């Protein structure tokens, strides 16, 4: 029973990691750069949710949708205004820019008087509710995290598998030159990808808020989502989610069964083991990159 309880909370934490990892992978596949501001996008999404519920008095789900929309827009604008102008610069420069964006995001949030430096609670309609399943007692917020993640993954799968734009996004990530030849607007699709991954980050942020509260440094969770993406095989969307789940569960188990302190390094231990055993990750593509 204890074990199942740990597994469930590990899974829900893993979903959060998975969602952020999904954002990393989406942008990596489309543009071949890693967006290290992914965690900060999540943080901004959570603050947008907080703003909607507490200061605008919106109902939770309305604020949720609003926060996702606003953050998606922010993602699109970031791509258009910051990343597109430096297109063609070395990957290192682009990565540094995203790191810088993360700092800027954190700095701007802490400038907001009172809220920015505090740890804020995001009121939810399902606070303190529990789901009893057999002998299991699961906090409602964990159930919501898992359910929303499943829904979101199904939605993304549908988009990438069946819509013309989604297939074009896949095409552009597989062979950008050929996509240009076909008249696929690669730049515009990349902007859209940034929007989607920002939206996914915002979903993670608002879902995480009831569990860990909203604060300026919550974006550091990105440091654990990155290993999740690596475990999944950087470049695989299902891999990102599975990698997140693996890390979440391992973390939760090691927090209980292993001595104090192991919980915090669990993610990195998993990644190291993974890199030794299967360097391509769980779902890594074995295709070698064509020049």
């Amino acid at each position, binding site marked *: 029973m204890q074990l199942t309880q740990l597994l469930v909370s590990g899974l829900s934490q893993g979903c959060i990691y998975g969602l952020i990892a999904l954002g990393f992978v989406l942008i990596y596949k489309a543009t071949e750069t890693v967006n290290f501001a992914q965690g900060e996008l999540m943080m901004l999404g959570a603050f947008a949710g907080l703003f909607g519920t507490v200061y605008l008095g919106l109902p939770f789900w309305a604020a949720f949708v609003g926060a996702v929309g606003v953050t998606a827009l922010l993602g699109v604008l970031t791509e258009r205004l910051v990343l597109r102008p430096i297109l063609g610069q070395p990957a290192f420069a682009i990565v540094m820019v995203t790191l810088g964006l993360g700092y800027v995001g954190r700095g701007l949030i802490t400038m907001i008087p009172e809220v920015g430096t505090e740890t804020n609670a995001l009121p939810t309609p399902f606070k303190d509710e529990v789901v009893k399943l057999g002998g299991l007692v699961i906090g409602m917020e964990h159930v919501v995290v898992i359910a929303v993640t499943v829904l979101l993954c199904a939605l993304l799968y549908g988009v990438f598998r069946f819509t*013309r734009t989604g*297939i*074009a996004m*896949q*095409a552009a990530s*597989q*062979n950008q*030159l*050929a*996509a*240009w*030849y*076909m*008249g*696929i*607007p690669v730049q515009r699709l990349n902007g859209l990808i940034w929007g989607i991954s920002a939206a996914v980050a915002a979903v993670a942020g608002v879902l995480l808020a009831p569990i860990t509260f909203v604060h300026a440094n919550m974006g550091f969770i990105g440091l654990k989502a990155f290993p999740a993406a690596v475990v999944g095989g950087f470049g695989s969307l299902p891999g990102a989610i599975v990698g997140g789940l693996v890390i979440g569960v391992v973390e939760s188990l090691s927090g209980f069964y292993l001595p104090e302190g192991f919980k915090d390094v669990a993610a990195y231990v998993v990644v190291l083991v993974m890199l030794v055993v299967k360097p391509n990750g769980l779902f890594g593509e074995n*295709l070698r990159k064509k020049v």
Partner: protein
Amino acid sequence: MSGDAILTLANVESAYGPVKAIRGVSLSVPAGSIVTVLGANGAGKSTILRTISGIIDPQKGFISFEGQPIQGLDPGQIVRRGISHVPEGREVFPLLSVHDNLMMGAYTRSDRDAVAADLETVYGYFPILRERARQEAGQLSGGQQQMLAISRALMSRPKLMLLDEPSLGLSPRLTQEIFAIVTRINRERGTTMLLVEQNAALALEVAHYGYVLEVGRIVMEDTCERLREKEDIQEFYLGMKDAGVRGERRWKKKKTWR
């Protein structure tokens, strides 16, 4: 060779950074014909095609398609106007299914019924693609990928097709097959073709008119029949004149075109 030209290049110069790849190329492609550009490796043949399809913007010169200037337009706009490009080395989308690859060729179109009809036509040209429709394109053989690349370009319902080395890496038999289809498409649909090809013998056989490109400049042009007769072409591109009277070969013969 001009009045009914669908595509005209006038004095086009393109460069990769500081390296000038084509230096003032002028050529015209009559509607409904197959025109070939011959030349050695690095002569700038592919650059001409890339410049036409908008992947590279020319530094100088004019390109007009159906009387409209198209230089400097986005590749997407150029596809919409009716030019499609079969890139060198096939460049299929390896992880997408054959069907999805073909649909990507029709990305710029929104007339669903006509796209479905064109899909059928294309499967008619290459029945193997229908059999493999659900398979990932990366798993196809080289020849099948070339068929896919040509079909994908057809899916935009082009008026002009740019074919870059369709025989690259294919067996002679497959090459023959591909070229048979290319001429058939040209005949049946009236699609104009601009063909770049290493295999000069084959190119001169299927094309109507030819240009010879050397180090970024057009040095000769004529109908393919007459080009085939020319001594220089025979020597340099068809490899027909390989021994002199006394059995020796003069490798160092200085050759100028002027």
